[in-house]
């Protein structure tokens, strides 16, 4: 059986039907990783024995449940790749940073625990921009992940490893985190589907914080159905995270075929300057597709969204400057040798342990919180945040869902933007406002540009509208084949 040709849901169905075992599936993906990852570099840490051992345990549970005639969790036995900023008990968790090069957490992130409870198999840890700061995975301290569609291009970031792994069929599913687009942008660049859930639906406990008020864990899959099932597996209230919503959730996976023909607004702010024509055309094509499916599609404008990008860089950097202060070489992680005294130890460990982009953000954040600048920058950004929240609220009183590009361009060349921080920041143009407002949004394949690179479209919904977003993408994917395309078939990395 060609395991790699199956979607995550199909794998789970075959395992439930005893046509496949978790061990066989895990071994198949481990084989792909060992064969292809020299070219892609999607993974930071894969331990075959660990993964297979887990797969065996999971299979035993599956067998036991099946023998009792019980229903399996939707993704039982399916392997999943984990972005390396999520703590897995006793497994190295580095955030692709030298400062955590040897850190082994004695605890699991809640999202990981939830995935394990749902009998999923942890395959390994994927590469990322250091501390999730970046849009290209070029800021990893350890390796450069390549875009499986064109290895001279970046996979996007910061969850570039997770996106590339799913695109390269090294994993059927992966978890990423999205602070300003870090799931949606790499999903777009790599031609896969990625969901950024409503802030507070997936616990952040055990996710190494970048910007606490914006960070959210979410799923990658080839299709919306896989994302829905993985989102179901990891979401839910967690008393260890004070920002986790205390509520009961419906299953998004069970709602996946319940296409509600939502009213769609095309967000004009993200259809202007800086967005390539190929991408604009893909949005227009998607509009036509949804109209043919019975949706009303109108144009809608939220002018305050222009504030989102500067507000995002101020807020995320300010929070990061504080969150990353704990990396000081004292209790864990990298410690510089030969420091004379403690101050010296702090400065050396941090200066040697952090990469340039991380330092840049810490500096920017420290600056905007300083007395004298707080009101001018940080507090102003909080006010801009109020306006963005209000802007979206108004829009969602008119339409159910917003449609726009996930990124202004397709994947750019490795090295193209590394010398220009500002141009890299503009790659997040279409995604950051969603985090500022704490909303859910999904990025999904909507075609290819003239050079054959995937184009990502984005649907944005109101709070807790994940099921609507996922079913709406599912309806699109029932009518299109973009999400089924493989880099190998298109002449990408072999």
């Amino acid at each position: 059986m060609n395991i790699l040709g199956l979607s995550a849901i199909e794998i789970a169905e075959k395992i439930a039907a005893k046509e496949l075992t978790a061990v066989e599936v895990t071994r198949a993906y481990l084989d792909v990783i060992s064969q292809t990852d020299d070219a892609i570099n999607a993974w930071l840490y894969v331990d075959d024995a660990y993964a297979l051992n887990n797969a065996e345990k999971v299979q035993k549970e599956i067998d036991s449940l099946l023998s009792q005639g019980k229903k399996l969790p939707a993704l039982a036995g399916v392997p999943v790749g984990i972005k390396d900023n999520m703590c897995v008990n006793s497994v190295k968790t580095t955030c692709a940073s030298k400062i955590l090069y040897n850190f082994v957490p004695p605890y699991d992130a809640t999202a990981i625990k939830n995935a394990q409870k749902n009998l999923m198999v942890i395959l390994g840890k994927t590469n990322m921009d250091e501390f999730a700061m970046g849009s290209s995975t070029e800021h990893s301290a350890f390796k450069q992940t390549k875009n499986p569609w064109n290895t001279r291009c970046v996979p996007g970031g910061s969850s570039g490893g997770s996106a590339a792994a799913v695109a390269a069929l090294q994993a059927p599913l992966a978890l990423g985190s999205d602070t300003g687009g870090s799931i949606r942008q790499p999903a777009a660049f790599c031609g896969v589907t990625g969901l950024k859930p409503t802030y507070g639906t997936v616990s952040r406990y055990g996710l190494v914080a970048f910007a606490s008020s914006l960070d959210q864990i979410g799923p990658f899959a080839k299709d919306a159905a896989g994302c829905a099932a993985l989102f179901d597996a990891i979401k839910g209230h967690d008393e260890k995270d004070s920002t986790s919503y205390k509520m009961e959730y419906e299953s998004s996976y069970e709602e996946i075929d319940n296409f509600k023909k939502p009213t769609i607004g095309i967000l004009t702010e993200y259809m202007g300057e800086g967005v390539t024509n190929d991408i604009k055309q893909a949005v227009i094509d998607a509009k036509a597709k949804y109209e043919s499916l019975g949706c009303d599609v109108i144009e809608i404008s939220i002018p305050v969204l222009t504030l989102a990008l500067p507000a995002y860089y101020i807020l995320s950097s300010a929070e990061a400057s504080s969150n990353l202060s704990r990396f000081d070489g004292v209790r864990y992680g990298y410690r510089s040798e030969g420091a004379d005294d403690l101050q010296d130890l702090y400065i050396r460990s941090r200066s040697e342990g952090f990469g340039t982009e991380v330092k840049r953000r810490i500096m920017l954040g420290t600056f905007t919180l300083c007395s004298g600048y707080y009101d001018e920058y940080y507090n102003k950004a909080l006010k801009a945040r109020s306006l963005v929240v209000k802007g979206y609220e108004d829009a969602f009183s008119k339409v159910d869902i917003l449609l726009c590009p996930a990124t202004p361009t397709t994947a750019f060349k490795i090295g193209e933007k590394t010398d220009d921080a500002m141009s890299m920041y503009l790659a997040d143009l279409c995604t950051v406002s969603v985090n500022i407002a704490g909303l859910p949004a999904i990025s999904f394949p909507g075609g290819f540009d003239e050079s054959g690179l995937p184009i990502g479209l984005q649907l944005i919904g109101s709070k807790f509208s994940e099921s609507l977003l996922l079913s709406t993408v599912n309806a699109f994917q029932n009518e299109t084949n973009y999400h089924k395309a493989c880099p190998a078939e298109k002449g990408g990395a072999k």
Partner: protein
Amino acid sequence: MLKGYDITIGLEVHCELNTQTKVFCNCKNEFGGEPNTHTCPVCLGMPGMLPVLNKQAVEKCILAGFATGCSINDIAHMDRKNYFYPDSPKAYQISQLYHPLCSEGLIKFSFTDDEGTEQQSQVRIERIHLEEDAGKSIHDAWGKSSLLDFNRCGVPLIEIVTYPDMTSAEQTCAFFEALRARLRFAGVSDCKMQEGSLRADVNLSIKPVGSDTLGTRTEMKNLNSVKAIYRAIKSEAKRQAEELSQGKRIIQETRRWDDNKGRSLRMRSKEEANDYRYFPDPDLAPIAVDEEWKNELRKSLPEMPAEKMKKYMDEFALPEYDCGILTSDPDISSFFEAALNHTKNIKSVSNFIMVDMLRIIKETEMEFSDVCFSPADLAQLINLVDTGVINISTAKTTVLEAMFAGEGSPDAIIESKGLKQMGNEDELLKIVQEVIAENPTPVQQYKEGKQQVIGFLMGQVMKKTQGKAKPDTVIELFKKELI
């Protein structure tokens, strides 16, 4: 008093709350312990860990607010105060800057000024906010490295900030004692200064007498006893006056008090002070205190010492001074009140506690809470005196000391030590007659009208009876025999 200058003093008092667990994690909140055995990934600031606020800590902060006459704010936020320090694992302290839980309180108290005059006074509280305590650095003997113990890290702490309403060391110490008593009566902290659960920073400035403009202030840290506060104020006021008299300027700075050397040393100037970059902690939701919650807590607030004192004076007809002592410490007042359930002799309970028990406690350097016998035991002892089973001096010395030594209940101690009073007239008559025979001179003096000699003769009887003779009976017998 400082010649030619007025002193202006404000306090920042830190008080550890006596919750079971820490403020943001489930670690034990307890003084001491093997280093780092009361820690977890959250209070060690490990990657990905998140704080979850302890409800009891919030409630105790609010109770402290009620105990000090503060208003409780409808909305409070937790903020991050950013600074690198080895005992602060996250390199930020979760505290409250912009929206504290409590604001604008007032404490009334009395004190004796340096001329011995009793003064009525009041100090305004600016705010009380909730935060987390830091860990401890232990400096090793050879000075090469420091060791870090985070057991205290994350213990809930409230900071009580006063307005600069105090003008002398005497007044400041009396205010501090009044505040401490209120915090203890409110049940929010044990306020043990020697264990650091209550600490004070003193802000002090001086200005020429009559001037309206405040002088430049300094902040003194590390004041671990009331005596240290007193000495530090005296010393710092003197230092500032000397600087000014030499034509120097006072520099706004933080100073560390060295109680052994009796002087303060400069820690850092204002210019070197950190920019703490406070901002709202995104990990913690705002705290909303509605009227219902406030009322519930207000109702649960135990009686404050001032109210208790008034009650003691009114209901028990005890002198003001005695009531002041009985209400200076919740352990004392609850012991007092509990003892009253077992005896009717209020005055005697009060005397035993404030004179005899406190004497022994002071002599043995213990705390009232360390007393190992029950209020019922004390009441029993008093009842045994009142019914003539033992005499009062034996009760206050031999029996009470044995009770402190944990030798058992009063009746058991009296039994085992054979301390029962001799009230048998025939037996005592023999001894009285012996004493009269052995002391012809005093007897003669007594007969000549020197009444006070009876005390000497009584002493002789007590000697022969190991103090067990019932004094009233002995005096009666002497009077009869010596007519």
